[in-house]
C-alpha cells in the first residue's frame, strides 16, 4: 500500500501532510539548515506512533521526530527523503504525583505549560530552556536541554526518571520508571540527548522539585565584559553555586530594552543576572557574599528585583533575548559552546576578536555560571553571505575547543555540528557511539544524518556542505 494512504488510515487524513506547500513549512527549525521532508504525520497516541513507524519501515522511509521545531542545530530538519513525525498532538499531562514528586507526560507537552500546571502544587520541573514557552518536553529530552537554572539543577538528563519509547522497528518499550535505581542497564541517560536517533519518546516520567521558599534575583553592573567574567569565575571559585548566573553585554541590553522596555542599565559594559534560591537565611548569606565578590572585581552597582513582576520581567527579557536581537540585524547566528570557567575571560576576548575581524556585531548573553557561551553573530542574510558567517562561527568553536571546551552546551549537534565531532572525539570514541546507536537502530532509519559524522543523508543541504569543508579544513 502507498505509504501516504497507510499513514492517513492510521492518523486520519487531516493529520498527514504531503502537498509541497505544506512540506515547505517543515523545512526549518530556528537555526539555518533547511530541508523539506517527504511527508508529515501527526499521530495522537503511542499506538499510532508505533503504527506510523512500522509503516515507514515497511516503505523503507527514514523518520525524523519533531516537537515544536524550536531547535537551533537542525535536529528536526528532515533530509534523505525522511518523513517527519510530529509530537504536537501528544500533549497530555497524564499524571502529577505530588507526594512522590513525579509527573508522567506526553512528549508534546510544552515546557512552560508543565510549569504552569505544577505551580499550584508547589512543584516545578527544573530544566528551563529559554525556548520553554514553545519547546516541548520531547524536544527537551532529545537535546538534553539546559537553561539558566541548569547551573544549580543540572540538565534534563538529571530530571528524567524514565521514558516510554517507540523503537525503530515499531516496538513500544519502557526504560526506567517512576521508582529510582531500577536494576539492569540504565538506558535513560543514553536516550536523553540522543536527538531522535534511537526512537520516538511517547511518554516520560519526570522528576519534580518543590518550589524554593525564597528567590532573590539581582543584577550586578560591570564596566566591561572582562570584569563581569572574572567576577563570575570568583563566585563559582568561592564555592557558591547560585540557582542561575547569566551574563549580558551592552549590545544585548540595548536590544532587550528596545524589545521589552526592560530598563536594563545600558551604561554598564556587562551585567550579571544572578538568582539565588533556598531558605531565606541561606539566600541572604549568599547574596552578601556574591555582592562582595562582584564589587571586588569592579562592579559599580547592584540592582535587586523587589517584586515578582520585576523578576518575571528580567527573565522574560533574558529568555526571549535571542530572537529580540533581530531588532538590531535581521539575522543572527547563535553559537553554543562550553568552556572551562577559568578560561572565560580569555575565550571571550578571543571570540570578540573574531567578530571584530569579520566585521560582525556580536552580542553575548549566556549561562556564564557553567561556562556555556552563546556568542551571537548579527548579520543581514540579504547582503552578507552565510558562508562567511559559518566560517566565523567555526572559528569561535575552534577557540572554545582549543581552550578545552565542548561543541555544545544544550542545543545539540544535529546537522549543524556533526562534522565538528571529529574535533573533540577520537575515531574510536565515535565508533563506540555508532555501535551504541546501532544496537537500537541497526539500519539507521531514525533521524539519519544527525549527530555522528560521516553520514550521507544530509549531505545535500548547502549549509551542511560548507560546514563539512570548514570542519575538515580547520582540523590540523
Amino acid at each position: 500500500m502507498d505509504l501516504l494512504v497507510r499513514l492517513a488510515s492510521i492518523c486520519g487524513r487531516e493529520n498527514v501532510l504531503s502537498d509541497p506547500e505544506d512540506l515547505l513549512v517543515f523545512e526549518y527549525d530556528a537555526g539555518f539548515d533547511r530541508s523539506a521532508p517527504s511527508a508529515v504525520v501527526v499521530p495522537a497516541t503511542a499506538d499510532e506512533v508505533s503504527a506510523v513507524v512500522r509503516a515507514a519501515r515497511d516503505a523503507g522511509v527514514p523518520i525524523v521526530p519533531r516537537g515544536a521545531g524550536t531547535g537551533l542545530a537542525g535536529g528536526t530538519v528532515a533530509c534523505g527523503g525522511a518523513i517527519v513525525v510530529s509530537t504536537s498532538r501528544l500533549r497530555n499531562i497524564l499524571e502529577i504525583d505530588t507526594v512522590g514528586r513525579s509527573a508522567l507526560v506526553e512528549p508534546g507537552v510544552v515546557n512552560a505549560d508543565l510549569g504552569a500546571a505544577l505551580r499550584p502544587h508547589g512543584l516545578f520541573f527544573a530544566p528551563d530552556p529559554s525556548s520553554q514557552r514553545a519547546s516541548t518536553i520531547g524536544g527537551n529530552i532529545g537535546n538534553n536541554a539546559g537553561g539558566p537554572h541548569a547551573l544549580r539543577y543540572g540538565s534534563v538528563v538529571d530530571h528524567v526518571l524514565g521514558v516510554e519509547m517507540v523503537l525503530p522497528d515499531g516496538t513500544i518499550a519502557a526504560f526506567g520508571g517512576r521508582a529510582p535505581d531500577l536494576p539492569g542497564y540504565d538506558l535513560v541517560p543514553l536516550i536523553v540527548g540522543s536527538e531522535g536517533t534511537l526512537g520516538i519518546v511517547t511518554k516520560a516520567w519526570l522528576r519534580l522539585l518543590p518550589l524554593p521558599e525564597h528567590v532573590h534575583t539581582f543584577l550586578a553592573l560591570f564596566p566591561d565584559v572582562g570584569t563581569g567574567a572574572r567576577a563570575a569565575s570568583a563566585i563559582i571559585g568561592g564555592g557558591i553555586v547560585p540557582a542561575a548566573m547569566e551574563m549580558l553585554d551592552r549590545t544585548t541590553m540595548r536590544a532587550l530594552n528596545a524589545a521589552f522596555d526592560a530598563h536594563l542599565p545600558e551604561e554598564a559594559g556587562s551585567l550579571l543576572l544572578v538568582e539565588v534560591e533556598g531558605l531565606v537565611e541561606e539566600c541572604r548569606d549568599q547574596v552578601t557574599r556574591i555582592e562582595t565578590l562582584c564589587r571586588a572585581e569592579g562592579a559599580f552597582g547592584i540592582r535587586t528585583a523587589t517584586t515578582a513582576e520585576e523578576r518575571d520581567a528580567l527573565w522574560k527579557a533574558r529568555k526571549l533575548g535571542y530572537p529580540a536581537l533581530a531588532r538590531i540585524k535581521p539575522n543572527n547566528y547563535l553559537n553554543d559552546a562550553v568552556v572551562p570557567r577559568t578560561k572565560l575571560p580569555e575565550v571571550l576576548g578571543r571570540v570578540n576578536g573574531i567578530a571584530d575581524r569579520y566585521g560582525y556585531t556580536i552580542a553575548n548573553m549566556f549561562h556564564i555560571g557553567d561556562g556555556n557561551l552563546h556568542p551571537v553573530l548579527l548579520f543581514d542574510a540579504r547582503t552578507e553571505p552565510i558562508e562567511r558567517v559559518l566560517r566565523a562561527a567555526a572559528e569561535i568553536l575552534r577557540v572554545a575547543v582549543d581552550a578545552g571546551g565542548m561543541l555544545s552546551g544544550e542545543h545539540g549537534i544535529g546537522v549543524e555540528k556533526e562534522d565538528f565531532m571529529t574535533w573533540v572525539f577520537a575515531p574510536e570514541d565515535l565508533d563506540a557511539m555508532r555501535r551504541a546507536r546501532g544496537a537500537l537502530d541497526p539500519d539507521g532509519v531514525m533521524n539519519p544524518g544527525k549527530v555522528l559524522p560521516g553520514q550521507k543523508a544530509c549531505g545535500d543541504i548547502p549549509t551542511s556542505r560548507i560546514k563539512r569543508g570548514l570542519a575538515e579544513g580547520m582540523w590540523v
Partner: protein
Amino acid sequence: MTVPGASRFELPSDALQQCIRCGMCLEACPTYTLTGLETESPRGRIHLMDAMTHGRIGATARVSLHLDRCLGCRACEAVCPSGVPYGELIELTRAQLVRPSRRRDLLLGAIVARPRVLDVAARVGSLYERSGVRALLHATGAIRLLPPGLRRLESLYPPLARPRYRAPTPPSAPVARVALLLGCVMRVAYGDVHTSAAHVLARLGVEVVDVPDQGCCGALHAHAGDREAARGLARKAIAAFERAGVDALVVDAAGCGAYMKGYGRLLADDPAWAERARALAARVRDVTEYIASLEVPAPLGRLEARVTYQDPCHLAHAQGIRRQPRELLRRIDGLELVEMPDADMCCGSAGTYNVVQPEYADRLQRAKVDAILSTGASAVVSANPGCMLQVAAGLRARGSDLPVLHVVEVLDRAMRS
C-alpha cells in the same frame, strides 16, 4: 526555482526578514494550538508568504487555505520578540490573494461601507426580529430545520432590535471634547452601546461632538483583502474627524480602534495623506483607555454583579490594552471580577471568520464558552461587537442566557445607580 505566475506576489522585505523562525509565537496562535500543525501557525504562514515573495511557490489554493485560516487576532504579534509586523503582513497578503470567498467578502464590504444600504439591510433584519418571526423560529425549534449555513448566519445576525444611538446632553463645563466613532456594524447593531459610552463620558465631564460623514473605518474591508477600499474609507474618516477638531477620537469597537491606530502605516505611501493619517492615528483612543486616563471618581458607581472579562484580540494583542478595562470594572462598588482561563484567547469571531471558517470558529467558540461558564460569573463583559456577538451566540447554543455586555454598558449602569 521560480513558479510561473508567482512573481506578482510581493511583501516588504524588511518586515519578512524580521522573522527568524524562533517559534515563540506558536503557543499564542489559536489555530496552532487547535491543530498542532505548523501549517496553521504564524511562523508557517510567514514562511509561506516569504516563499511566495521569493517565487518558490505560487499563490495556490493550498497556500490560501492556510492563510485564510488565520484569524488575524495578532496574538502572535504581541508575543513576538523580534517585532514582526504580522498584522500588516497578513493584510498585505490577503490583498494579493485571490480566494473563492472573495466575492462574498466584497459584497459584505459594499453593504457595511454604505450607510444607506446598511440601513436597508438593518431594517429588513430588524423587521425579521421585531415581527416575531425570529422568536417564533426559535421558540418552536423550527430554526433547526434551516440548513446549517443559514442557521449559522442567523445565529450571528446582530440584534437589530436594540435601540439606536442617542447623544447625551453635553456637560455644562466640559473638561475635554472628543468624537465617538459610530462606525458601521456597531451603529446599526449596538447603537445603545454607543449611547452608554457617550453617557459615561458626559457624566465624567467630556463633551461628545457630533461628527457627520464619518463613515466606516475600513478594517472589515482590509481584513477581507480589499485594501484599496479601506484606504478610501480611511481618507474619508480622517477628513471628517479633522473637521471636528477634537482632543481625541474615542472608539468603543476594539477592531476599529486597532485599525485606526494603524492609519499612519496604511497611508504612508500617499504623500497627500501620510501626515494627516499619522496625526489622526495618534489621537485614537479605545474608550476604556480614554476613560482610564481621566481623573475619575472612585468608586465608579455601584453594581452588584459577578462578571468575567473577555479580552478582544484587537484590544489586548493589537493595542496592548488589558489593564484598563479590568481596572475600570474593579472600580465599581459591589462588582466582582473573576478571571476566566485564557481570557485573551480568540473567541473565533475575528471579523467574518466565523462565517468563512465555521469549523475552527466553532471549536474556539466552544472553548471560550467553557472558560466563561467555569467562572460562575453572572455576566460576560467585553469591548468589541464581533466578540460580543460570537460569545452570545455560543452561550445561547449551550442553553445559557448569560448577558454579554460591553464595558461601557456596565459602567453606565453602575454610574446611573
